[in-house]
């Protein structure tokens, strides 16, 4: 079946003219029509546009062009601005917002011949770990539709898991790519902060946000990252450093690789989950890698640190949604204050408001030092811990999440429990490090993820290690029941 092929295989068929992009696109559109109603993974479908882009890609193929993403259908998280298409960020606030420009990520993938099928559902303004905070309703996990897919890029994870697109873009501020990738059994890559442009990606927490990708394999992720990565003069925080050949990096041997087992990630981890990670380690040892235990003593500070830094930045980033120039505006405002209060009060959901209030509080005079400054210091300590660990090992490894997907509604009223879901992923964001989650087995019949984190700009190494794992395992080939054909 076409949808079970990896990007490289689909590209091969396209290159050999055994398949057209229009056919492939139509195939995915048919699957979307069939499966999306039960998954609610999409906010906006761009079918006509996609078929147009597919036809254009086919023409480019005919003209002799032959790049791996040319004519391959994808879905963008609805946080990326797409010219002429609604970009809602999962919020009522932007339900009516049609972006007048393309995000750099969108621009680059479009330039490479990507065919955009739709915009994916997500937690409102990327704030959430379960995709339940979306104005457009929760996304359902194809492995068990009573369960969450994780978040905030839940829609992107689900369309990849259910094979509704060849790949999907996402963003990861505290685990928003890796956590849903783990919970839906797909590969999720969060690059180094600054590796991929943030221009046109609606900001949640600017110092943590990073665009990445959901694929079904590390090899596919290498193909997509190759196009997404690179300096963007429109983003001052993007890094002007050459982009290596990620596909070539896949071929490096794993023998001699030094892998650190993150001690703190196993404290209190349930045995079934811990066993999956131990299995993976055993496999790496078999491949000739060396595994040692490493400790990041400051890592337990990461959740409280994150929940100061991220809300602080979001409280400021979301100030522009004031009902004046774009987005939701309340009906018949009596005066300016009423316009502000009701537009924001009615336009934002509960979790977004909670974080704006938290962030406003931690930045306020009298609290700034105790919260914001202290969090910055803790953040530095966490980054220093990672740095020290990477003097001993090439990368560190652990679970992506403590548990598999939980039931919809189980944690939504308990923010602290919900926040703890990101306990293993947040550290990489605070330190700006790249991380990848790959499927590594099941707990209670639900997929779990193996997380690899490396030093800055070690995406090649991470993809390489993940690829070798996938050469030896087939978790990443598993399809949720009901979505096979």
């Amino acid at each position: 079946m076409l949808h079970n092929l990896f990007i490289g295989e689909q590209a091969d068929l396209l290159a050999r003219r055994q398949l057209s992009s229009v056919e492939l696109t139509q195939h995915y559109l048919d699957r979307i029509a069939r499966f999306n109603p039960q998954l609610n993974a999409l906010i906006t479908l761009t079918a006509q546009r996609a078929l147009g882009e597919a036809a254009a890609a086919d023409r480019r193929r005919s003209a002799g062009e032959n790049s791996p993403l040319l004519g391959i259908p994808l879905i963008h998280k609805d946080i990326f601005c797409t010219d002429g298409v609604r970009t809602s960020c999962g919020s009522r606030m932007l339900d009516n917002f049609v972006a007048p420009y393309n995000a750099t990520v969108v621009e680059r993938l479009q330039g490479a011949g990507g065919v955009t099928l739709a915009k994916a559902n997500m937690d409102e303004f990327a704030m959430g770990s379960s995709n339940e905070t979306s104005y457009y309703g929760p996304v359902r996990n194809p492995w068990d539709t009573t369960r969450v897919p994780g978040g905030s890029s839940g829609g992107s994870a689900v369309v990849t898991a259910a094979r509704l697109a060849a790949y999907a873009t996402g963003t990861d501020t505290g685990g928003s790519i890796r956590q849903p990738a783990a919970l839906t059994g797909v590969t999720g890559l969060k690059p180094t902060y600054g590796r991929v442009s943030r221009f046109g990606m609606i900001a949640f927490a600017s110092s943590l946000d990073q665009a990445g990708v959901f694929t079904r394999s590390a090899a596919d992720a290498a193909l997509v990252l190759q196009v997404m990565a690179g300096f963007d003069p429109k983003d001052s925080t993007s890094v002007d450093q050459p982009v290596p050949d990620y596909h070539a990096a896949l071929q490096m041997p794993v023998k001699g690789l030094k892998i650190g087992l993150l001690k703190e990630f196993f404290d209190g981890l349930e045995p079934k989950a811990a066993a999956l990670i131990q299995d993976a380690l055993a496999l790496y040892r078999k491949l000739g890698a060396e595994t040692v235990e490493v400790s990041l003593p400051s890592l337990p500070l990461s959740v409280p640190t994150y929940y100061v830094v991220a809300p602080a930045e979001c409280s400021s980033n979301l100030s522009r949604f004031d009902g004046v120039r774009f987005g939701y505006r309340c009906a018949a405002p009596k005066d300016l204050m009423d316009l502000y209060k009701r537009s924001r009060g009615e336009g934002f959901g509960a979790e977004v408001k909670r974080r704006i209030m938290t962030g406003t509080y931690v930045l306020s005079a009298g609290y700034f030092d105790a919260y914001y400054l202290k969090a910055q210091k803790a953040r530095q300590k966490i980054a220093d811990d990672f740095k020290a660990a990477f003097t001993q090992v090439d990368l560190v490894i652990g679970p992506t999440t403590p548990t598999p997907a939980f039931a919809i509604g189980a944690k939504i009223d308990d923010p602290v429990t919900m926040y703890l879901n990101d306990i293993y992923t947040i550290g990489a964001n605070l330190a700006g490090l790249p991380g990848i989650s790959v499927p590594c087995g099941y707990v209670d019949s639900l997929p779990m993820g193996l997380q690899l984190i490396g030093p800055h700009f070690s995406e090649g190494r991470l993809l390489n290690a993940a690829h070798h794992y996938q050469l030896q395992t087939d978790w990443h080939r598993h399809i949720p029941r009901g979505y096979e054909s």
Partner: protein
Amino acid sequence: MTHWETVIGLEIHAQLATRSKIFSGAATAYGAPPNTQANLVDLGYPGVLPVLNAEAVRMAVKFGLSIGAVVAPRSVFARKNYFYPDLPKGYQISQYELPIVQRGSIGILLEDGVAKTVGITRAHLEEDAGKSLHEGLANASGIDLNRAGTPLLEIVSEPDMRSAKEAVAYMKKIHTLVRYLEICDGNMQEGSFRCDANVSVRVRGAEKLGTRAEIKNLNSFRFVEKAIHYEVARQIDILESGGKVVQETRLYDSDKNETRPMRSKEEANDYRYFPDPDLLPLDIGPAFIAEVRSTLPELPDQKAARFAQDFGLSAYDAGVLCASRELGAYFEAVVGRAGAAHAKLAANWVMGELSSALNHDSLDIDRSKVSAQGLAGLLARIIDNTISGKIAKDVFEAMWSEGGEADMIITAKGLTQITDAGAIERAIDAVIAANPKQLADYRGGKDKLFGFFVGQVMKATQGKANPAQLNDLLKARLSGGP
């Protein structure tokens, strides 16, 4: 005088003369139709990011170097958070804890010759906001975001000034400097150069500063002076009647010549400053500083010192002539032709007749109707005694209103000075003959009548008699025989 002492500090906002905005590529030109010079970055659209304009940085460094300040090796952009419709992002990007320019100073010279140094605490880069439009809109306010994102250099002084005059002298000095550096056009009507004044009073000799009021958005030197005068009087009134000055922001109403409260400290915003995560810290190395230093022009103080030294001018006059680069250049061009020996004469003419003619017609020096060459031509005729200083004023007026060179006008109007002693004596004789009574009175001791005789002779010669010669000859004649 009173036992009150006035303490003033100024925050000057100089709009930097970059072609594009500080964080976007939109143009900064003034006066375009509303919202035609605001792009998605200026509008604060979702997903857009700021990119720092290198030219604005260069200009700030130029300023820092010219006031002997520290150019910070690392400065940081911070967000100042508050809601207002003309502030598209809900925050202003500014610099807070680590500004680009730190700890400089500048000298001011008052008319009475008193010199003083004013400390400059800091100067930081920030973006301007847009503006709200209320006129001609029923039940609505318009927003024009053309100005949003325009680069500003906010120059913050120490509370070193003790009178409105000092404050104005300081503001003028900074105004002169930024125009010399070509980093700001200095246009106050268009708001390119404006200031907030922090004003307080205290008992003379007290160490602690009094509670201050901040008067916002003063956009003329005259308003600064008047607003401070009003504010000082208001605060003294309050204190003398046993009240307390409230710390608040006030607005100056130039129509009523008064200040009024805008908002008090209690309702002041908590701006929740924090480093802008969209912009990296700004690192400036010694090589860049050296490169910028090499582009600095001769600064006003340097030029004034040179004028004083080379031309024997008073420090105050030299300062006045250096108030703008153009005026200094004009003066130097005049001196170049007239000769350094006549610099004082040139200075008097430039600061006197020329300045009042320019003021009268509201013209800048670069639009003067009499060129430096023209003025030098006129001065040459004074120097070689062709005309008197008094006649020269008439010639200047003719040059100003009708155009033409001094020589042409002197010839055409027959204004050449009479230096022939015989001719002057003949005129004297005629006047004496016609005024026997005055002659008798003069000789009887009424010395003051000397002026009468001078006037009569000048009248008879249409003012052309050489004044010095006339003086000598007349004295000799009056004290001599009948």
